């Protein structure tokens, strides 16, 4: 799941990890009550500093996406639909932000993008 963590990106690693989990939870890829890997397991698996994983988990816990139960581990929380929707929107905005930035640096217009979108998704232009 964390194959696309990019240490070279200006986005801190812990933010990337937290975001990936956030999206997975919001889209239902990871269902509530799923146990998350321990800090030790995840750090070793994706080969990042354990402190980074700790920070990511802490952020997610603060935002109410996950919860740690004493002795049992860390689990995905049940999120109410409004919360999930807001997470989905957040991710969508993030994608669009990147697209807009790149498109403007290449001087592509909204029309160019619309056309390309319709092409990709198979809609009739």
């Amino acid at each position, binding site marked *: 799941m964390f194959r696309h963590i990019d*240490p*070279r990106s*200006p986005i801190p690693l812990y933010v990337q990890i937290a975001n990936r989990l956030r999206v997975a939870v919001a889209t239902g890829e990871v269902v509530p009550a799923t146990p998350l890997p321990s800090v*030790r397991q995840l*750090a070793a698996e994706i*080969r*990042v*500093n*354990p*402190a980074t994983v700790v920070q990511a988990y802490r952020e997610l816990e603060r935002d109410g996406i996950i919860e740690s139960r004493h002795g049992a581990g860390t689990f995905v929380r049940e999120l109410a639909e409004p919360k999930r929707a807001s997470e989905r929107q957040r991710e969508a905005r993030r994608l669009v932000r990147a697209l807009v930035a790149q498109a403007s640096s290449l001087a592509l217009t909204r029309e160019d993008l619309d056309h390309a979108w319709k092409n990709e998704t198979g809609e009739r232009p």
Partner: protein
Amino acid sequence: MIAHAIETHDMCYRPGPGFELRDVSLKVRQGAIYGFLGPNGAGKTTTIQLLLGLLRPQGGSISVLGRQVPRELPRILGATGYIPERPHLYPFLTVAQAIRFHGAFYRGFDWAYAEELRRGFDLRGEAKLARLSKGEMGKLHVLLVLAQRPELLVLDEPTDGLDPVVRRDVLSALLDFCSQGAATVFISSHLVHELERICDWIGVLDRGRLVAELPMHAFKNGIKRIRLDHPPSLIGDTPFLLVSRQQSALDQVWVVRGWQPTMVQWFQGAGAEVKEIVDLDLEEGFVELLRGARTPTS
């Protein structure tokens, strides 16, 4: 509780003309994963050898795990796992014999953990060290130092020359160990991308001098490449640290450290136009830092 696992003050070493370590003052915090970066020939291996008492400095002081080098060296080494640049184990021993030999010298050597790692790394006990591949030898080194359960790990290019699969296994085992306790890791490497994932502190050595030492996030966030139009020709005090300036056909590119977004105003005040601000990854940042350290900017 000691604050710094490794601390040197103005360490100097000059074995002869043409090479010199000068005024090296390292501070490695307890529990940090500290990446020691530098081009070949900068003196990384020499620094490590000085830290572990394999060489004697000509000046300065060295303290490791709160103890003086070389006065309390055996006690320091008892709590330190060292992987040197070149393999140093006895080639005529088998893997099992090498583990038995190594473990006999360390109090608290975890034989069960050693066995678990041996199986995890897929190393045959009867294999002679001389017959091991580079990757297997690398894994054995890691096995031995981790089974010591040390307080400090000093690794000199531990994954150099290893194929990506072995490198992954080695890093995973290392990070797994780090998550279990408060061990400090001092790892020197020129594989910048690897360090980028796992280190939280960075020290940069160039031509025998410590050029930078700071937390990873500060290094990465603070260093930027700025493209300017109408750049100021005379520079007084800058709110940031100017690392380098380069004139290209279209514009001037400045590399700065300690950048804050509000500093755009300084450029505007100087009549310049900021066209682009680019984040540098660790490798680029490292290259720019070296460039800045080597050429004086006026």
